[in-house]
Structures are given as structure tokens and as C-alpha cells.
């Protein structure tokens, strides 16, 4: 079993929204970033994986097992961090460990204590008095303390200061170090993904635009900038997320077409560029 997560032709329909035929594979030992605008379907996908929503079609396999039939076993080995803490606010850090530990056979109390110390979480401090960064760290401490093999994070870095974000990214890299664990990481802050992700899945309005290696995605496009007189009709049709100003134009083009754009400046893209350009569409300003 080399893939920790396999999503095979999964669809889910809500009134006014369709998560359409997604197929995604996350191999063991890697970090996958899940990107897309608000309402793209990232959280819906995470809820489907966790069986918090019932899918309309397709199959989801976690650790090679069906996510509904073997939900119980899968959750034993899965850690989840949402953007909002989901523990009782009058629990202390110690209470949280005691309360959560009953659900996991592999819960390691010593490890939880060590992680709490490392994350500077005082054992007698109540959750309601923790900062957002500390709450995220507490959820991570819980996920790490039951020896999770798959970590699912839904927007964990939003609202975190740069230092806490950097710490979190380091932790995730440490988490997958042994090559046996994987991370699925949904975020709006794509700069974080560029630091740590190996794979990217890009969703837009419920459709999958891309899934695969991040390097390939970044290699696929180039940022193009030029003067308005150089913007031919043919070029305009090839540019994704075209933005025209009095000074010139910019957008994304496929790298394989780069040879055609002699008078323009070509530059590296970021994931943000790709997400924004796709949301604008082709040949629009």
C-alpha cells in the first residue's frame, strides 16, 4: 500500500454546488496542498474523506481501506486539524489529553506531555484562554500523540502570525520525515505550500483543475508581461488571467508556448498566480 489516500471519481452535489468527479492520489511520505478559492470544495472534500458527508458517487480509500466501511480503523490512524478548535473551551490542556486519549489505542500520554511542553502549552491552562496559534498547536499535539499516519489540516495557518506559521510548517516536515506518514493540507496561504508541499490539488468551483506534483504545476506555466502593442489577438487568447493596464499587460501562459512570445518578459509563477489566473479565466481582462 503505497498510497495513503485515494479518491476515485468522487462527486457530491448540493443545491447550487457540485463537487465534480474528483480523482486524487496522495502517496505515503508526502505533503499534498489543497488550494482553491472560497467555495471551491476544499472543505467539502475533507468532510467526504472523514465521512462527515455522504458522497453521491465514487470511492474514497484511506490506508487502502474504504472510508465508510473501515471508518473506525481509519480514524484511529488519522489526525485532523480544523481552522477552529473543536474541544470544550473549559477544558484545560491536561483535560483535553485525558478526554481524547480514550478514543485511541495508540495514545501516548508521555508524548502528549512532551509535545505540550515543546509547544509551550501549560497543562493547567484552559482552552478559552489560548491564542489561535496555541489552539492549532494543541490540535496538532493531539494528532501526533496517537501516532496518526495521515494528518488532515483544513486552513490551519489562516490567522496565524508568520512565526507560528513557520513553526507549523517545520512540524509538518518533521511529521513526514520517516516516509510512512502523509499530510493533506488545505490553505489559502499558498506561499506555505510552496515551502513544504510535494503535491498540489487545485479545485475551482467544484472542478479539479490540477492534481499532481507541485514542481510540474509550477513548471507548466510562466508569468508573461508586456506592452499593450505587443498583445496580439492570438496572444490574448492564450493568456490565462489576462490583466491589462495603461502600462501593459500580464497573465499566465503555458511554458511550452513560451517560444512564441519574443517581445514579452517571462517569469516564474507562484501557486497564487495560478489560482488567481484560473479564477479570471482565459483571454479576459
Amino acid at each position: 500500500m503505497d498510497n495513503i489516500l485515494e479518491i476515485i471519481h468522487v462527486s457530491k452535489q448540493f443545491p447550487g454546488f457540485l463537487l465534480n468527479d474528483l480523482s486524487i492520489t496522495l502517496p505515503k511520505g508526502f505533503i499534498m496542498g489543497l488550494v482553491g478559492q472560497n467555495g471551491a470544495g476544499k472543505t467539502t472534500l475533507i468532510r467526504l474523506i472523514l465521512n462527515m458527508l455522504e458522497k453521491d458517487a465514487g470511492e474514497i480509500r484511506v490506508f487502502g481501506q474504504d472510508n465508510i466501511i473501515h471508518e473506525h480503523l481509519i480514524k484511529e490512524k488519522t489526525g485532523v486539524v480544523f481552522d477552529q478548535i473543536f474541544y470544550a473551551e473549559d477544558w484545560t490542556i491536561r483535560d483535553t489529553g485525558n478526554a481524547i486519549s480514550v478514543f485511541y489505542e495508540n495514545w501516548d500520554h508521555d508524548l502528549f506531555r512532551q509535545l505540550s511542553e515543546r509547544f509551550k502549552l501549560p497543562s493547567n491552562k484552559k482552552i478559552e484562554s489560548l491564542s489561535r496559534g496555541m489552539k492549532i498547536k494543541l490540535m496538532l499535539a493531539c494528532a501526533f500523540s496517537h501516532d496518526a499516519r495521515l494528518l488532515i489540516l483544513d486552513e490551519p495557518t489562516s490567522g496565524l502570525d508568520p512565526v507560528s506559521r513557520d513553526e507549523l510548517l517545520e512540524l509538518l516536515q518533521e511529521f513526514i520525515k520517516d516516509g510512512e506518514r502523509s499530510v493533506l493540507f488545505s490553505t489559502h496561504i499558498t506561499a506555505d505550500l510552496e515551502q513544504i508541499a510535494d503535491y498540489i490539488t487545485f479545485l475551482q468551483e467544484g472542478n479539479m483543475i490540477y492534481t499532481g506534483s507541485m514542481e510540474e504545476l509550477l513548471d507548466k506555466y510562466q508569468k508573461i508581461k508586456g506592452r499593450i502593442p505587443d498583445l496580439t489577438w492570438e496572444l490574448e487568447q492564450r493568456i490565462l488571467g489576462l490583466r491589462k493596464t495603461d502600462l501593459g499587460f500580464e497573465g499566465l501562459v503555458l511554458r511550452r508556448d513560451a517560444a512564441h512570445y519574443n517581445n514579452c518578459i517571462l517569469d516564474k509563477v507562484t501557486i497564487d498566480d495560478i489560482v488567481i489566473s484560473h479564477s479570471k479565466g482565459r483571454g479576459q481582462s
Partner: protein
Amino acid sequence: MKNSLKMTRLDYFTMKHQMILHAATLIGMILIYTFMLKSSIVLLGTTCSWITALFSSTIFITQEKNQLNYLYATVSIRPAEIVRGRYLYLYLNYLAALLICIIFSAANSLLNGTPVSLTDILTTISLSFFIYSCIMGMQIPIYYKMGYARAKYWSMIPYLFVLSLVYTPAIVKSLSYILVFLQLHLYLFMIIGVIAGVAISFLSCRISVCIYKKNRV
């Protein structure tokens, strides 16, 4: 069953800090009823079942306020076990409250030099369990269906239902024969009360499981 007990334990952890307040309120009520109003153990027991049922809503408030549904959906436990564990927690609360009632009432009888009536104790157990089961049997599925915020007023229906169930035979003359029959067959009434309470609780639990599976988060 093992996993349902885990959920019961989680509910205990969730409510740990509020349980002291609940226990203090209950004991205060028992002291007033027992020593000031000199109420019978039957009245004390039934009042205790009302109060415990009222307290039961706090676990649903806490669940909603702290988004605990997300916690339940991420830990290694099945939806049916989550619901069963919650029922177990609420019924254990009731049993603890009833036990305190009986102990205080028995202590009061001993202090006053009056004998402790086993029939009264059994009647109390049967009647209060039946009342508690009726209220909770309706209230819990309503909370699972609507959540506490939306079910706040709907959850009063079980109390009105039980009140009407208790008072109708006393008010409507043509039904008063029921009361007479019950008084004549007290032990039968006790057995029926317990059996009906258990049946209502099981049915309610099954309904709640179905509802919870549908609206998990």
C-alpha cells in the same frame, strides 16, 4: 458497548465543570423539599426527574457552542456509539440524582424516627424513571434533529406532554378510574412504569441514532 462508554466518559469530561453546579442545585432542592416542605419521597423523586431532565439540555448547548460535532466526527467512534454513549451519560446522571434523593429522604425518615417505606421507594423509582424516560425520550431526538438553538422551544413539548399525561386522569372525571386502578394495583403499576420507561428509552435511542447519522455535522 466499550466505545459507547468512551463517549459517556467524554461527555463526563465535557460537563465536569458544570456538574458541580448541577449537583449543588439538586441538593439544594432536595433539602428544601425534604426538610422545609416535608415532601414525600415520591414527590421528591418525580421533581428530581424533572430537574435532571432540564439539566440534560446543557450537554447539547455545550456541544453546539464548542462545535463538538467536529470532535465526534474526527475521533475513532461510530455515530451509533456517540448517541448511545450520550443516552448512557444522561441516564447515569438521572440515576445518580435519584440515588441522592433516596439517601436524603431515608436519612430524613431516620432522623424523624419514621420507618423507611420500601413501597414508597419503589413507587418513586418507577414513577420518576417513567417521567424521565418520557421527557428524555422525546427531547433527545428533538435536540439531535434541530440542535439546541432551534429546539429551545420545541423541547418544552415533552414537559407539557408529561404534565398532561399525569394530570388528565385527575381532571377528567371519566378517566379517574385509571387512578383508582393504579392505586389498587401498585406493584403492577411499578413494573409497567419501568418496562414502559425502558421501551421508550430504547425507541428514542434508535430514532436518535437514525437522525444523528443523517445530520452528523
